[in-house]
């Protein structure tokens, strides 16, 4: 079981190393799109957390 878990994390590390550097040419459009996506996701996470807090307070 331990070896299975170790193997799993080893595999994740291997994947992280393999895909460490994005291969797509980082043009302005790509950079801008990725930035927008990060902001978008951040906003959604904030909204989810806000909803979660509201639910905990019984809102």
């Amino acid at each position, binding site marked *: 079981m331990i070896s299975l878990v170790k193997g799993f994390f080893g*595999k994740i590390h291997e*994947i*992280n190393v*393999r*895909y*460490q*550097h*994005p*291969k*797509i*040419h980082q043009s302005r*459009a*790509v950079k801008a*799109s*990725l930035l*927008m*996506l990060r902001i*978008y*996701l951040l906003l*959604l996470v904030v*909204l*989810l957390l806000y*909803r979660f807090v509201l639910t905990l307070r019984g809102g």
Partner: protein
Amino acid sequence: MVNLPGAAPRKMDFLARFFYRYRRLSKALRLFLIIAGPGIIVMVADNDAGGITTYAVTGSNYGYALIWFMILLGPVAYVVQEMCVRLGAVTKRGHAEAIFDAFGSFWGWFSLIDLTLTDFLTIVTEFIGMTTALAIFHFPPIATVAIVIILIMAMVLQGRYWTWEKIVLVFCVLNLIYVPAAIIVHPNYSEVLRGGLIPNLAGGFTSNLFFLLMANIGTTIAPWMIFFHQSAVVDKGLQEKDIRMERVDTALGSLATIIVASFIIMLTGTLLYGVPIESASEAAAALMPINNWVGTLLAIGLFDAGLLGAIAISLASSWALGEVFGWAHSLNNNVRQAPWFSIFRFVILLGAGIVVLIPGAPLILITLFVQVIAVTLLPAALVFLILLLNNKELVGKFKNTLAQNIIASAIVGVIIILSTLYGISTLFPNLFGGG
């Protein structure tokens, strides 16, 4: 008409020309029958249990008035799925692997984890649909879950993509059961033509209408479809030369989606207009006393829709994980050749089935949560799709043209805005004046 010396005669014999055209057409048809599959499956599976519920509720709330909107969504879904076809056929990679490779591990893990979570929750909703559909015939939910899991796993035992695809296509044909079901109830066709096909906002832009329009978009364009279609194209081994036929396959699939959606709206719009229903199974149960045959067909169709959804969605994540983790992940491999691929699929189906069977499980909350989680993944998956299809090094001559970019970007922009509003309105139901 004068023939130039040395040129082929311009006037071919009528019979020869007819025979030539017949041969050409029959060759194209045979080729199409070989290539067809992924496009039809992804589009018809899109009419899953959640989709059927959305269409049934749309019909019961607004009658025929929103059929035009479903027709509009067909080409929209086609544009998105056509990009998956090109990307898969040219790169021979699934969408998850393509994201890892092009955008690095952060976006890769984000997409993979989000997809797996969304798929798991969506499969829960498929099981809800299937168990409630068969409960109408007094079939116990535990038996439904067990039979569905055994059936889905048995379909891949042989380890042949072809066998799997043909079985799923039979289930796709069964999805058309809503067409005769709607015809039986004699919809008012002139009203369908006048009130349904001409774009209108069904008595004003209310929060309920807004929510239903967004729900229809959410059910027509889903993240799993992008991952599923691209991986299916790769697993089937489609090449660049097959793109044209796969486009036809996808277009036919989107046509089938529109037809099924429209006929469900016609069905509930005829018999249940104004009746407050919240799900397709409720609609089927409500129809039983009015017309037993129609209620039965609706319940069978709901079960089939849930089954198709579970088949396709469980595969979308299994393919994605297999691509990234480097497991054998083809439907052409049997269980021994691709053990992790099969185990993961079994686990995700079993887990979702168990959730549905837990007494008092928050199934309504799960159904709502699916929309929110899907909204976090859909924009990223769509943006990545467009960025990848603008990379000439990756897709060469199959790169998006300017026109394709304008259309795809406009569609993606609108989908992102509306699906985000849908997700937010699910989180905060009172925000847009809803109840």
